[in-house]
């Protein structure tokens, strides 16, 4: 069903694009669109999961309990302090090198580059997003937290109902930047053999060594960046509606 929908989109786009684009794009159009869709799927999933994880992380970091805050801080520090490519390769090639014997039932997960890519993108973005949310929380007016406590809310209630919603609104523009960075970072999962937009582009390039391949990919990535920006601005407008 979903697969049929993807084919439909792919056929439609290619039919529209073929008269206006070059021979190379017409020939490889289904591949480009397929990669484009894989990239979007990964982005949608990893940004959603990453955001949820980031909320958990920021709660742990701000909780004041060392048992929670120290591991969360270490996690964020490690993921922000190392390149995404290293994280990908540690988990896919590093852990994956133990194979079926070493990993047992986990092997079903680690042999799938798509799943590993999703995991690493999620973990990576959650570290950055938790830092952004923390910045937002710090900038929420102190009186808000005091008022929430004064009417008898627990720490968790005040976070969930008062502080985090406002922190998200404050942090939203920075979060938009992070979404674009995540999109750009997602190109790296092509190095662990996922056929996302970048992966498809590299396969096509390997076949014909035609540099225009990269130019088409560039255009598609710019389209994606534009779509993300539109989405971010639309949400920002929604947030601003209540403030007028």
């Amino acid at each position, binding site marked *: 069903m979903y697969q049929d929908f993807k084919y439909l989109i792919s056929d439609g786009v290619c039919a529209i694009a073929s008269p206006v684009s070059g021979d190379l794009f017409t020939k490889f159009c289904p591949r480009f669109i397929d990669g484009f869709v894989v990239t979007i799927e990964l982005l949608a999933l990893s940004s959603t999961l990453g955001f949820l994880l980031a909320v958990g992380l920021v709660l742990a970091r701000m909780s004041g309990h060392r048992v929670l805050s120290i591991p969360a801080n270490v996690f964020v*520090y*490690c993921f*922000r*302090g*190392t*390149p*995404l*490519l*290293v*994280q990908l*390769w*540690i988990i896919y*090639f*590093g*852990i994956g*090198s*133990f194979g079926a014997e070493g990993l047992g039932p986990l092997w079903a997960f680690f042999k799938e580059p798509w799943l590993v890519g999703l995991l690493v993108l999620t973990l990576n973005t959650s570290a950055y997003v938790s830092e952004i949310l923390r910045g937002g929380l710090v900038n929420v007016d102190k009186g808000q937290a005091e008022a929430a406590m004064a009417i008898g809310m627990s720490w968790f209630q005040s976070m969930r109902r008062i502080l985090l919603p406002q922190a998200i609104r404050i942090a939203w523009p920075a979060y938009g930047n992070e979404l*674009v960075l995540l*999109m*750009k*970072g*997602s*190109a*790296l999962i*092509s*190095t662990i053999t996922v056929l996302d937009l*970048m992966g498809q*582009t*590299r396969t096509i*390039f390997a076949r014909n060594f035609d*540099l225009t391949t*990269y130019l088409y*990919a*560039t255009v598609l*990535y*710019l389209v*994606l*960046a*534009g779509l993300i920006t539109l989405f971010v601005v639309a949400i920002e407008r929604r947030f601003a509606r209540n403030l007028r």
Partner: protein
Amino acid sequence: MEYINELLGPLAFGDTGWGDDLLRGAWITVTLALCSMALGLFFGLLLAGAKLSRIAPLRWFASVYTLFIRGVPEFLILLIVFFGSDKLINTALISLGFEGGVEVPKFGAAVAGLSAIFAAYACEIFRGAYLAVPRGQIEAAFAIGLSPVKVFRRVRFPQMWRYAIPGLGNLWMVVLKDTSLAAVIALNELLRIAKLGGETEGSQLLFFTVAGLLYLLMTFLSDRGRVWAEGRARRGVAGV
């Protein structure tokens, strides 16, 4: 020394292990990042000048360039620069009547790609810093009769750094981490050495983890440096 080497196993220094190779890789990573930053700062300043210029086409060029770099994956830019410069040089050589088949130095291609990225982000930082210098200071400088060039050199430029350093510090971390992409075009920097070592010794997790720790060490030291530089840039400013 012998004893330590035995303890390190595949990570030993010297002929038996990869310890010295990894450190050499880390050194290439650092020089790659430093070269990219130096070039990127230079072109970033030029781009910021273009963006603030009164000549519209220059402004348009700078805007389109930054939009392009910010929307396209670093990995793709690096590959375009790597394969593009290769093609460009060889076509030029052949059309001039020389033989083709020249290989572009990978280090040069990586520096070109990374500094192109650095410049786009640095441009935004410099532009912000330029505008952040208080208007009154510029007016005062003109009022005491300094020429526009002197106003820039003595008043605006020295103060710009104060506003630019936090952003540039972040950008340095970004470029330091982005150098790892050069492993994909087979430049022998830290990550690529770790990959080679891991594959040869059959212990990829160990080698990639060591590489990760070395990156963590580099970003940790950079962060210290950034804090120091920020403090130094703020010296003499009434404290907030």
